[in-house]
C-alpha cells in the first residue's frame, strides 16, 4: 500500500488550503481565491500526472479515465465533514433546542443552513435570463389586445373587416373563437379568453389582433369596430350585496339571490354567547383597505407557437404552469399532452402570475389562426387591468378580552371586492377569517365573509393571500385591548399563545410554533421596554404578529389521495451530476435553489453538481405551482424522498465494495464512509459507478402529499396546511404631525421559518416582504376616481416605496424545526409580509395617539385623524398634542406570570414524544385533550347563520339575506 501514501499527503495539503479558502471567501475576495484555486489545481495536476492510474479503474483505450475517486464537482477533493452542521441527534455539534428531526440522518453537512446564492442568479445578473418578452421565435407576430372602454357593457357586435384589410394584419380573434370558460379554481370557472357576451370592467378583453409589427397591430386595434350596449356598473362593493338587474355573472341555480355575491362564508366556533358578557375590554373598528397590485418588475408577456407536429408550446412567465396547461386544453379543445407549457424566467410574481390568463389564451388562439408564433407583451397599464391584486376590503373587527387578559372572542366581518371575476376569490373569502384563528388561543370566533363582483379589474391572490388585511385589523385591535387593559401588548400576546402541537379553534393542526421566540427576540433587540409609550410626540414603536399557511393542505384540482402535491424526478449518469426534474416554478423566490440544496444535502454533493430542469411541462413532473407558500415545504420534501432512493442505492453499492456495515455508513462531501471508522469508505463516484453497473443511469421519483388533517365542517379545508409559519415585527416610526407624513425608520423582523435552508434567501424574503407590506401600509393604492376609473395604472402614480422610504430592516430568523418540513423548514415567502402592516399602524398610534382604520396611511388621511384628535382635546396646533403613555395595571404581572408558565409548557410539549392532544379552549378551563364542542354544549360549531343572526346581520353577513336560486325553487 506504499503507493497510496503520497496521494493522501496531497489530500491533506488540499484540505488545509480549503480552510484558508473558506476564510477568504467570507471576506468576499472572490477573484483572488479563484486564481489561488486555479494555481493550486495546476500544481496538483502536474504533481499528480506522474502518478499511476488508480487501482480498480479500467481505462478504455483512447479514452480519458473517469475522474478520480473523491472528485466530481469543481473541487477535486472531499472536505472533512463540518461537525457544526451535523445535528446533535446524529452526534454532531448543531444544537437542537427543540429536539431532533426525521431528516437529521440525511444531513451530510453540505449546504443546508448555509447562506447560498441562488443557482440562477448568474443568469439574471449577467442579463442572460430569458423572461417572457425575451423569447423571440423566427417569424413571430406581435399580438395586441382590444380592450373595453366601458365599465360594464353588452358586446352587441364586433366588425373586424376594416382591420383585416390593413396590410400586415395576419389574424384577429374574438370571443367567438373561444367559447369555453376557464378559471383558476374548478368551482368558479367564469372567464373567457375574450368577451363572449359582456365586458365587465374597463380593460376587459374584447378582441385580439396579430400583425407583422406593433405599429400595425395598434392601428388594426383602432380599426376594429365594437358596438356596445352600456349597462349600469357597480363600483362600490357594498352595492354588490344588493339584488341587481344585471348581475355581473350568472351562476345559474347556484346564484345567490339576484345579487353580485360570488362567495359567502359564515363560521361560529366556541363560546359565542358569552364572549361579550365575559369581557372587560372590547375593541371595535371598521376598516377600509384599498386594493393593491403586485407590481412585479416584469409585465406579463407570452409567446405561443404551434410547432410543425401540431403541438402548442406556450412560453410564459407563470407561477402556476400546470393550471395554464389545463386551461389551455379546455379553451383550445386540445388534449393536454399536445401542449407544452414552457415557463420562462419570471420577473416577479407575488401571486400576480398565478391565474391562467386570457391573454395566454389569446396568444395561443392567434398563433393557431395565423400559423406563426405570436408574442404579446403588456404595457404597465395592462398589468393593472389583469390585476389579481389584494382585494379592496371593508372589515369590521371586534375583539373581546376577559378579566384574566384572555382573548375571549374575535368577531370579524369581511366584505371583499372581487372585481369582475372569481379568480382565487373563493379561497380568499375563507382566508380573511380562518387565518386569524391563531397564534392566539381564543374563546370564540365569529366570522362572516362575502366576496362580491364589481366592475373593476379582478382581485385575486397576492403575497399573504387573504390574511393580510384581517391580520392588520386583529393585531391593531390587540394593541387597543392592551391599551384598555393597561398592559404591555407583547406581554398580552405572550400570555395567550397556543402551544406547539395543538389544534386551533377551527381545527387546524398546528405543529411547530416559534411565535414566542419571535416575540421575545424582537422585544429584546428593539429595546422595546425603553421605548414603548416612552418616546416623544411624533416618535413611536409598535408590534405586529403574523401566522400563515406553509402550503395548502388540499390540492385545488383533485382529491389529495389521488395524486401527490409535488413530485420530483432525479437522474444521475456516470458524470456524477444530478439532474432534477421538477415542475415547481422558480419565480425568483429560489425554488430551484432549494430543491438543488435538498438533493445536494442528502447525496453529499456540492451545489455545482446539481442541475435543475424546471421549465417545461414536457419534461417535468406536475407541480401545483408557486402559491400558498407550498413549494419549499412540498417540493423539497419530494426531492428528499427521491434523493433518499438514490442514497440507498449508493449505500448498497458501498456495502458491496467495502463490506462495511450498512447502518454505520454516512455520507460526507462526495464520500461515503463508516461513521465509526472513516478510513473505510469510497468516493461518491465509485459508489455511483458500482450502482450503475447493471442498469446505467440512476433514476428516482419522489413525491409528497399532506397527511390527513382537519375537521369536517363546511369549509374546514380552507386554511388547512401541513405546517404554519409565525412572525413578529417591531416597527419604529417618525410621524410629522403637521403634515401627517409617516416615515418608518427601523423594523425588527423575526420570522419562524422552521429551519432556514438558505438563510440568505430567508432574509431576502423578510426584507422584500417588509418593502411590499410597507407599500400597502404607507402609500400603495389602486385609486378609483369619480366614475370608477382606475386613476393610477402606472408606476409613477402607483406609489411603491422608493429606497428613501425603506426602513433599516433587521431580519431575525427563528428556527422551530418543524417535524414535517424538509429538514424542519416551513415557508418564508408570504408570512413575513403580514406583521409589517399592524406594526406600523401600532407605531403610528404610539407616535401621535390616533388609530387609523384606513390603509394606506397616506399623509392626508393621517392628518385628518390628527386634526380630529386636536379638536376633541381642544388643542389648536398638532405640535401641542401629547404622546400616549401607559401605566401598567395589576393584570400586567398576571400576564407576565402566565407567559413564563406557558414558556415552559411549550418546551415540554416540544420535547415530549408522547404528548397528549391540545385543543384550543384549554386556556378557558376546558379539557385540552378533547375538542371542546364534544364536551361543552356552550361551544358552538356553526357554518350556517341562524334566523336570529339574519335579523341584524353585519355588512358582509348580510350576503346571507339572499337565498340560492336552487333553494328558491325557481332556477
Amino acid at each position, binding site marked *: 500500500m506504499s503507493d497510496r501514501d503520497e496521494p493522501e499527503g496531497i489530500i491533506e495539503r488540499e484540505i488545509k488550503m480549503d480552510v484558508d479558502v473558506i476564510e477568504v471567501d467570507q471576506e468576499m475576495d472572490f477573484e483572488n481565491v479563484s486564481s489561488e484555486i486555479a494555481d493550486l489545481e495546476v500544481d496538483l495536476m502536474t504533481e499528480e500526472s506522474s502518478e499511476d492510474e488508480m487501482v480498480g479503474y479500467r481505462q478504455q483505450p483512447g479514452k480519458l479515465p473517469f475522474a478520480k475517486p473523491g472528485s466530481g464537482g469543481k473541487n477535486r477533493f472531499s472536505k472533512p465533514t463540518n461537525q457544526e452542521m451535523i445535528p446533535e441527534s446524529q452526534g454532531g455539534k448543531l444544537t437542537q433546542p427543540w429536539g431532533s428531526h426525521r431528516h437529521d440522518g440525511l444531513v451530510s453537512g453540505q449546504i443546508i443552513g448555509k447562506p447560498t446564492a441562488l443557482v440562477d442568479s448568474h443568469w439574471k445578473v449577467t442579463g442572460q435570463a430569458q423572461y417572457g418578452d425575451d423569447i423571440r421565435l423566427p417569424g413571430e407576430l406581435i399580438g395586441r389586445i382590444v380592450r373595453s372602454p366601458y365599465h360594464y357593457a353588452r358586446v352587441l357586435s364586433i366588425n373586424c373587416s376594416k382591420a383585416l384589410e390593413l396590410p400586415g394584419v395576419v389574424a384577429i380573434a374574438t370571443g367567438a373563437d373561444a367559447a369555453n370558460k376557464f378559471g383558476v379554481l374548478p368551482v368558479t370557472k367564469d372567464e373567457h379568453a375574450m368577451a363572449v357576451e359582456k365586458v365587465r370592467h374597463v380593460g376587459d378583453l374584447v378582441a385580439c389582433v396579430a400583425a407583422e409589427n*406593433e405599429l400595425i397591430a395598434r392601428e388594426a386595434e383602432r380599426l376594429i369596430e365594437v358596438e356596445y350596449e352600456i349597462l349600469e356598473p357597480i363600483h362600490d362593493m357594498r352595492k354588490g350585496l344588493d339584488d341587481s338587474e344585471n348581475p355581473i355573472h350568472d351562476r345559474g341555480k347556484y346564484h345567490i339571490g339576484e345579487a353580485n355575491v360570488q362567495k359567502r362564508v359564515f363560521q361560529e366556533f366556541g363560546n359565542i354567547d358569552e364572549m361579550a358578557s365575559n369581557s372587560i375590554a372590547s375593541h371595535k373598528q371598521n376598516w377600509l383597505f384599498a386594493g393593491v397590485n403586485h407590481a412585479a418588475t416584469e409585465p406579463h408577456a407570452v409567446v405561443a407557437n404551434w410547432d410543425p407536429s401540431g403541438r402548442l408550446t406556450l412560453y410564459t412567465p407563470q407561477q402556476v404552469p400546470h393550471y395554464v396547461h389545463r386551461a389551455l386544453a379546455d379553451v383550445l379543445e386540445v388534449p393536454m399532452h399536445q401542449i407544452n407549457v414552457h415557463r420562462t424566467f419570471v420577473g416577479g410574481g407575488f401571486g400576480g402570475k398565478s391565474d391562467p390568463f386570457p391573454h395566454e389564451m389569446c396568444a395561443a388562439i392567434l398563433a393557431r389562426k395565423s400559423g406563426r408564433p405570436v408574442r404579446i407583451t403588456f404595457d404597465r397599464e395592462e398589468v393593472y387591468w389583469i390585476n389579481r391584486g389584494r382585494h379592496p376590503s371593508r372589515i369590521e373587527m371586534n375583539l373581546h378580552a376577559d378579566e384574566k387578559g384572555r382573548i375571549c372572542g374575535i368577531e370579524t366581518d369581511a366584505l371583499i371586492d372581487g372585481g369582475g371575476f372569481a379568480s382565487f376569490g373563493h379561497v380568499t373569502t375563507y382566508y380573511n377569517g380562518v387565518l386569524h384563528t391563531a397564534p392566539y388561543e381564543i374563546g370564540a370566533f365569529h366570522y362572516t365573509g362575502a366576496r362580491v363582483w364589481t366592475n373593476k379589474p379582478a382581485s385575486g391572490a397576492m403575497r399573504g393571500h387573504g390574511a393580510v388585511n384581517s391580520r392588520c385589523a386583529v393585531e391593531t385591535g390587540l394593541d387597543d385591548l392592551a391599551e384598555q387593559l393597561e398592559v404591555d401588548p407583547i406581554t398580552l400576546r405572550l400570555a395567550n399563545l397556543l402551544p406547539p402541537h395543538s389544534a386551533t379553534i377551527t381545527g387546524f393542526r398546528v405543529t411547530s410554533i416559534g411565535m414566542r421566540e419571535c416575540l421575545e427576540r424582537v422585544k429584546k433587540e428593539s429595546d422595546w421596554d425603553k421605548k414603548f409609550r416612552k418616546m416623544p410626540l411624533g416618535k413611536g414603536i409598535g408590534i405586529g404578529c403574523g401566522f400563515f399557511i406553509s402550503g395548502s393542505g388540499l390540492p385545488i384540482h383533485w382529491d389529495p389521495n389521488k395524486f401527490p402535491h409535488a413530485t420530483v424526478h432525479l437522474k444521475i449518469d456516470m458524470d456524477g451530476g444530478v439532474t432534477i426534474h421538477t415542475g415547481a416554478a422558480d419565480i425568483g423566490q429560489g425554488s430551484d435553489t432549494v430543491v438543488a440544496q435538498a438533493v445536494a444535502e442528502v447525496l453529499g454533493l456540492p451545489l455545482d453538481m446539481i442541475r435543475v430542469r424546471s421549465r417545461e411541462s414536457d419534461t417535468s413532473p406536475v407541480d401545483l405551482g408557486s402559491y400558498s407558500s407550498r413549494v419549499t415545504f412540498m417540493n423539497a420534501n419530494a426531492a428528499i424522498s427521491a434523493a433518499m432512493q438514490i442514497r440507498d442505492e449508493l449505500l448498497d453499492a458501498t456495502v458491496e465494495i467495502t463490506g462495511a456495515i450498512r447502518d454505520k455508513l454516512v455520507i460526507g462531501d462526495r464520500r461515503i464512509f463508516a461513521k465509526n471508522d472513516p478510513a473505510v469508505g469510497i468516493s461518491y463516484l465509485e459508489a455511483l459507478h458500482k450502482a450503475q453497473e447493471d442498469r446505467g443511469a440512476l433514476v428516482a421519483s419522489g413525491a409528497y402529499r399532506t397527511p390527513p388533517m382537519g375537521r369536517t365542517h363546511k369549509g374546514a379545508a380552507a386554511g388547512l396546511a401541513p405546517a404554519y409559519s409565525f412572525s413578529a415585527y417591531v416597527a419604529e416610526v417618525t410621524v410629522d404631525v403637521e*403634515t401627517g407624513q409617516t416615515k418608518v425608520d427601523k423594523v425588527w423582523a423575526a420570522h419562524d421559518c422552521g429551519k432556514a435552508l438558505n438563510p440568505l434567501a430567508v432574509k431576502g424574503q423578510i426584507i422584500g416582504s417588509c418593502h411590499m407590506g410597507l407599500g400597502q401600509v404607507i402609500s400603495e393604492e389602486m385609486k378609483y376616481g369619480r366614475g370608477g376609473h382606475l386613476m393610477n395604472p402606472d408606476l409613477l402614480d402607483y406609489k411603491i416605496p422608493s429606497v428613501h422610504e425603506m426602513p433599516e430592516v433587521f431580519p431575525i430568523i427563528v428556527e422551530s424545526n418543524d417535524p414535517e418540513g424538509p429538514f424542519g423548514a416551513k415557508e418564508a415567502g408570504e408570512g413575513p409580509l403580514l406583521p409589517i402592516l399592524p406594526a406600523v399602524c401600532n407605531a403610528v398610534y404610539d407616535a401621535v395617539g390616533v388609530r387609523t382604520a384606513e390603509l394606506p396611511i397616506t399623509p392626508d388621511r393621517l*392628518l385628518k385623524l390628527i386634526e380630529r384628535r386636536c379638536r376633541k382635546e381642544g388643542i389648536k396646533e398638532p405640535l401641542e398634542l401629547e404622546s400616549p403613555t401607559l401605566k401598567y395595571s395589576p393584570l400586567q404581572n398576571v400576564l407576565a406570570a402566565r407567559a413564563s408558565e406557558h414558556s415552559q409548557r411549550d418546551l415540554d410539549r416540544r420535547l415530549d414524544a408522547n404528548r397528549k392532544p391540545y385543543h384550543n379552549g384549554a386556556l378557558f378551563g376546558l379539557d385540552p385533550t378533547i375538542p371542546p364542542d364534544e364536551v361543552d354544549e356552550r361551544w358552538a360549531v356553526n357554518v350556517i347563520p341562524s334566523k336570529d343572526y339574519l335579523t341584524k346581520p353585519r355588512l358582509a353577513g348580510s350576503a346571507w339575506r339572499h337565498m340560492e336560486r336552487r333553494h328558491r325553487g325557481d332556477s
Partner: protein
Amino acid sequence: MMRMPPFKLHTPKTLNDALNIARELSNEEIEFDWIAGGTDLLPNYKWHLNAKPHVISLSGISELSKLNSNHIGAMVSLHDLAKSKYTHPVLVKAADSIASTLIRRSGTVGGNICLDTRCYWFNQTEQWRESIDWCHKCDCGTEADCRVIPNQNTLCVATYQADLAPVLMCLGATIHLASVNGIRSMPLHNFFELDGMTRNVLQHGELVTHITLPEDVNEWKGDYQKLRQRESWDFPEAGVAALWRMGTKGPTQLRIATTGLESIPGLHLEEANNAISKWNGSNTIDTLADAIRKSVKPVQNTWYSPSYRKKMVKVLTKRACAGLIER
C-alpha cells in the same frame, strides 16, 4: 408594449440651425416639438399625448449649456445645476429634489421650466383616455370636455408641477427667448400664462435660451419646501419657495412663490409685501402662510386632494420662512 409614434429627429449644432429648421417646418405647416432632455416629452409621446411628426433636438447646441452665478443656459442639466458651485443654494435644493438621479442627469433647466402640465385625466394611455371619452388637453379630434371641471370647454386646469420656477421667480430671474423673429426677454413670472394647455408665452418656433439672475442674487437667503408622497420620483404636489434679504431689524425684502398648485407657478408679491410692511416675527409668518394658502386654488387632478394640498401650503410656507426668525 408602449411604443412611441414614429417621428423624424433633427439634430442641429447651432441655435441658428435649430431656428431655421423650425422655420422651414413652420413654412410647410408641419408640426414639431423641441426636445431637450426628453424626460418629459418622451413619456408623453409613449402615451400618445400630442405627439408630433418632427422633433428638433437641442442637445447638440453647446451655446445653450453655459452656467455661472448669473447665467443658466436652458440646456444645463438639472444634475449639473445642482452640483455647480455657482448655483444659489436654494436653487440647488430645488434642483436636487427633482425626480431621481437618472432623470436629473437627462432633464434640463429649460425643460423643467417648460414642463408640460400634468393631470390624472391627461397623463394616461390612449386606451385609458378613450375610456373617459378623451380630455380636451389631448382630444384626438373629439372636441372633448375637461374631465376635472366639466361643462367648461375653454380652460385646461392641468397642474404645473416643476420645481425650479418658484425659486427662480423669487430670485428675480429673467428668461430669454429666441426665434427666427429675434430674441426677447422678460421677468420669469411674466413668462407663464394661466392655461394648462398653452402654459406660457412661447410662440410656435420660439424656444428658451437661458435664464439670467440679478447681480445681488447671493444676498438673498431662503428655502424651498416640497410636498410629495415619496422622496424620489414624485412631482411636487405643492412647493413653496421663500427668499428674502435681511436688514438689521428683520427682513427688508421678501418674495414667496408656489408651484404644483395651479396650471402655472405663482409669485405672491402682494402677500409678501404685506408681511414685510407689518413685520412682527413668527406671527407675521403665520398670517403670511395663511394668506398664501388662501391665494391658491388647486383642483382634484393629482395624487393628494386639493384640500390637503392647500392646507399643506400653509405648513410649507411656515417651514420655508423658518429661517426668517432663526438667528
